[in-house]
């Protein structure tokens, strides 16, 4: 199954063999090319090169075409402040500076960078037919903030009719952008509306939900998948976000992933997230990034979950940190090892092994990850079974799989750190690599002699 199919399956909440990984690479791809954010985000050629590089370096299953929430605003006359190390910022708000709503029109493909972005999407589509491409559009509320400035918060209370009018307008802009992206052949259209993290559920339901709903419905009618991204702590609105009926929601590191999982899956919406951008990806070590990602994967599970950073990754994120996450995603053995060492660190309650050991028998314990994803584990177990067989009931051979709670506790109790490990009478005799059968038997006999087992 290719990456695109994997992403689509996760969106549809079907079981997957591996959790799909969608690195939200925005202007960070500029850094991969040694360019500033400005040079990167203004050039079709650069974005195509940068995303291609990110897909390869980070073994992405899905990726956004461009992560820049200023594209629509720019095309509608907001001034941007361009900088080297971040996406540009909107610094003028036409509706707060004398213009009226009727003076502003829905952008045309030729306005601002819209055409460049759509051509980029189309070209990336040609080059990467097997990767899930995400077309990102500025959400209606965030776009309304760009046009009006922070007065919008007061206006929610004081002039609700005006805000509704504005939202109807920005929703049309979203529709336009969604349609343009769909023409380029993207697989997912994502509405990114970070400003909604700042409002209460009542305001969300009144001023955002009906409009977001409209856009998602139109995307659905064109048989394209949709996602709702909200960066920032939007915990209060997760339910309402799902009620907008996107296929997927993607959320920020501030929100507990298990909470999101429970709410979204109950509503039939898949979910994604939420590796920490700053603490892990930007400033953490490779191992910290892997641990964070693993925690997300273990909470997320293989049905309806996509692994992703909490939001657009900081430009300076070290390449090796993103690669560490990519490695983890593709390497189930590494996942098992990390899980196991975590269990050891967390001091899980040890098992009481008094009845485990027996005076007249030799006990062989094989600690494994499930056989499917860890080929070595399967061979180790097989080798142990074959080696023990001739001794009949005098040798007890058991498998402890760390996907079970008992397995994890056994691993911790025996002090095992790598998988697979073969333990004889409590001693870690063979670690990670699989010994020849006669070596295992030689060890077993050593213990039999010591204990006087005949």
């Amino acid at each position, binding site marked *: 199954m290719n990456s695109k199919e994997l992403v689509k399956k996760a969106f549809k909440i079907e079981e997957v063999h591996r959790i799909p990984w969608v690195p939200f690479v925005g202007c960070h791809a500029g850094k991969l090319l040694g360019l500033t954010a400005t040079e990167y985000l203004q050039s079709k050629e650069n974005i195509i090169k940068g995303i291609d590089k990110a897909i390869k370096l980070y073994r992405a299953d899905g990726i956004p075409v461009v992560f820049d929430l200023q594209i629509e605003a720019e095309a509608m006359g907001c001034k941007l*402040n361009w*900088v080297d*190390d*971040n996406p540009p*910022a909107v*610094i003028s708000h036409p509706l707060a500076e004398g213009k009226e709503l009727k003076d502003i029109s829905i952008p045309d493909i030729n306005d601002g960078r819209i055409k460049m972005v759509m051509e980029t999407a189309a070209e990336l589509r040609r080059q990467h037919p097997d990767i899930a491409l995400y077309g990102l559009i500025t959400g209606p509320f965030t776009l309304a903030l760009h046009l009006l400035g*922070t007065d919008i*918060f*007061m206006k*929610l*209370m*004081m002039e609700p009719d005006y805000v509704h009018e504005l939202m109807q307008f920005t929703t049309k802009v979203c529709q336009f952008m969604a349609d343009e992206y769909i023409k380029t052949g993207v697989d997912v259209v994502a509405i990114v509306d970070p400003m909604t993290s*700042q*409002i*209460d559920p009542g*305001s969300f339901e009144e001023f955002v939900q009906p409009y977001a709903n409209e856009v998602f419905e139109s995307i659905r009618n064109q048989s394209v998948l949709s996602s709702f991204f909200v960066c*920032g702590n939007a*915990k*209060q609105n997760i339910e309402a976000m799902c009620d907008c009926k996107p296929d997927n929601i993607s959320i920020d590191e501030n929100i507990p992933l298990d909470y999101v999982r429970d709410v979204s899956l109950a509503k039939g919406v898949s979910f994604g997230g939420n590796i920490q*951008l*700053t603490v892990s990806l*930007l400033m953490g070590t490779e191992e910290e990034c892997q641990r964070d990602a693993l925690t997300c994967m273990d909470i997320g599970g293989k049905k309806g979950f996509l692994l992703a950073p909490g939001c657009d990754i*900081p*430009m*300076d994120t070290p390449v090796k940190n993103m690669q560490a996450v990519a490695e983890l995603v593709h390497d189930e053995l590494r996942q098992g090892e990390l899980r196991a060492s975590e269990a050891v660190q967390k001091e899980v309650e040890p098992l009481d092994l008094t009845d485990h050991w027996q005076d007249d028998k030799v006990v062989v314990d094989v600690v494994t990850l499930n056989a499917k994803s860890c080929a070595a584990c399967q061979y180790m177990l097989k080798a142990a079974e074959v080696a023990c067989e001739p001794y009949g009931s005098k040798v007890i051979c058991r498998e402890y799989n760390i996907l079970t709670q008992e397995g994890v506790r056994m691993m911790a109790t025996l002090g095992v750190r790598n998988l697979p490990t073969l333990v004889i009478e409590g001693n870690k005799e063979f670690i990670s690599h699989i010994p020849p059968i006669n070596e295992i038997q030689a060890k077993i006999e050593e213990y039999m002699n010591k204990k006087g087992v005949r």
Partner: protein
Amino acid sequence: MEILKQIAECVEFGKINEKSPYPPNMKGRLGADELVKQALEEGVDADTILKKGLIVGMEIVGVKFRENKVFVPQVLMSAKAMTAGMTHLRPYFNSGEVQRKGKFILGTVEGDLHDIGKNLVGMMLEGNGYEVIDLGTDVKSGQFIEALEANPGSLVGLSALLTTTMRNMEKIVAEIKKMNPEQKVFVGGAPVSQEYCDKINADFYSPDPQGVIERANMLMGA
């Protein structure tokens, strides 16, 4: 006193004046604007109105915001109601009849334009009896230092929302401390943490305005 309780409620729920349609369930009732004026006319002294009325309301808002019971729009409405009431008290501040707790200089650091959080912190400080000197956004170390020199004894707070501009904080804190090693510096904003605050040698971090107020009150002995 009943009127002080009503004033506090207006701030808590963001009732600016009689005309304001918000909150819907207080429609037609008097707002902070009218009630403060009325209280002054009834002879309640300005200091009492501030401390037993307006501030009481704002304190509740601070706690509710910390607990995610209200969000930015509601806090802004409360701040508006507070300001409407304060307008009537202004003459008494100037005459010295009402004592402020102290001065607080605030700014979003160089390169950063985010000001929603900083403004909330400012409004809450004001609502809790501080005089706030707001230097705005994209504020360079020189501007902070000028303001500190012009207002000795003030507290100062830096806000940053970007991981890139967060680094400018370090520089600004160092410059401020170079000027006056005793100067207490608050830092905040979403990517900032207690760890980062310690690392850059700033004095206080808080994830929300309520924490700033609690610390400031301790420092000012208020």
